[in-house]
């Protein structure tokens, strides 16, 4: 069994945190998990992405083709559209991306991450909205388990709003 996921966006959007939470949950379930982040040198505004591999055995942290890719911004879409496996999922942040993907052999899901986050009450929870949506396409981790992990890993003052955002993302792709 192997699941390969890529998250990509702009530095400061919480792209890597979303990946870390996914991995923490999967590691708790006993899977062999690897998260490999990548960033630019700038403190803010550079590119960030992470590659997540959830598997039964040790292998490459670098992904050739992913089962699911989530892109926050247009440059990420340009960079990663071709890395989705045939029949894999491409989750697009329609709040920031107006261009259409060119491939016809993948499943495209559009979610207005920033708009949903604003509705939930905090624009910075867009990454949790994304995580909620991602969980829908994985049988591995339940929403409840993820909420518990968030309660452990996040500052108590922001746990609730982030859990709300997670739920909103999950419900959006309903």
């Amino acid at each position, binding site marked *: 069994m192997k699941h390969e996921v890529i998250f990509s966006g702009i530095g400061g959007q919480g792209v890597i945190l979303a990946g*870390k939470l996914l*991995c*923490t949950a999967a*590691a708790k379930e006993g899977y*062999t*998990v*690897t*998260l*490999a*982040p*990548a*960033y630019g*040198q700038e403190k803010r505004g550079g590119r960030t992405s992470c590659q997540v591999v959830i598997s039964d055995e*040790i*292998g*490459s*942290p*670098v*992904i*050739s*083709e992913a089962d699911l890719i989530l892109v926050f911004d247009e440059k990420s879409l340009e960079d990663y559209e071709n890395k989705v496996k045939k029949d894999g999922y491409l989750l697009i942040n329609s709040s920031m991306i107006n261009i259409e993907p060119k491939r016809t052999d993948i499943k495209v899901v559009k979610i207005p991450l920033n708009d949903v986050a604003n509705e939930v009450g905090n624009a910075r929870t867009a990454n949790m909205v994304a995580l909620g949506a991602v969980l829908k396409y994985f049988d591995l981790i339940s929403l409840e388990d993820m909420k518990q992990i968030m309660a452990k890993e996040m500052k108590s003052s922001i746990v609730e709003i982030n859990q709300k955002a997670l739920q909103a993302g999950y419900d959006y792709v309903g």
Partner: protein
Amino acid sequence: MGEKLFMQGNEALAESAIRAGCKFYCGYPITPSSEIAEYYAKRMPEENGVFIQAETEVAAFNMIAGATATGNRAMTATSGPGFSLGVEAMSFMAAAGLPAVIVDVMRPGPADGDILAAQGDYFQVVKGGGHGDYNTIVLAPFSVQEMADLTPQAFELAEKYRNPVVIVSDGMLAKMMESVELPEKIEQKKNFDWTLTGAKGRKHNVITTCATGPEQWEQFNLELQKKFNTIAANEQRWEAYQIEDADFIIVAFGSVARIALSTIKKARENGLKVGMIRPITLWPFPKKAFAELKDKDFLVVELNAGQMVEDVKLAVPDKERVFFYGRLGGVTPTPDELFNKIRELYAKNNQ
């Protein structure tokens, strides 16, 4: 069986060093190694240890020389540019017999370059970089678990041979997070007769690398060479994957070896008999692994313009059968990319 944690490579390395009894850390922040400094800054007050943010790498490398001269375990971490600043001290510590541990988290060069994965420090770290005839043991972990396993061993080897030991990782391994079982916590056993602690009740000890004449200095060097030859004979380490029936053997270390694991799987699924030799010690280079491998082709894959490939050519029976594939600038090849390269070489060979 200890508890499994989900930890970042840098932090797992730092925690393992602390558990190995290394309570003195100094260093200068440089991406992608800074988490090691930050981890030590947080933990040292709890452990009654010392964390110093050195003003430069030159200072840091000389601080660990001083620290190990007292017999205590000491470590610094840096990246390529910082290691370059420290090589004078590497020469010094090897000659002076100081068992410090140095971590080089490699990043793409040359010069300031970028901060992702690279292996362009192989020459610098393995061939010395500093002046004179000396060597340092170089360990190359390829997973967060191996970082945790090899770090305590680095301190032991350094003390066993009275020589600095380098642990090389890279910008990907350092930032990667994986499940890891950390080593047991131990107290360092100090039983040295050469350290500088104040000559109470014993003859005084002197640590110097200043020669008093060519005859003396040649003798000093011959003793050093004996040390390095002993290490080379006894400490070569590597891991072999499915090489017995392999036509093609990938040779890779660190993160590239991880990528290659997936390549081997795909190759075998496609009927290509591919294996891998993964050096764990870059110095001493595991020549023993290659010496008897006749009738095999080798693909050396590195994140540089071709550095370890020279040592592979020296180690195999037929250097004409060694091929090279490299990526530069912090770009890492995908498993598929390596698979396609192997397929290409297979096709060429079968023409």
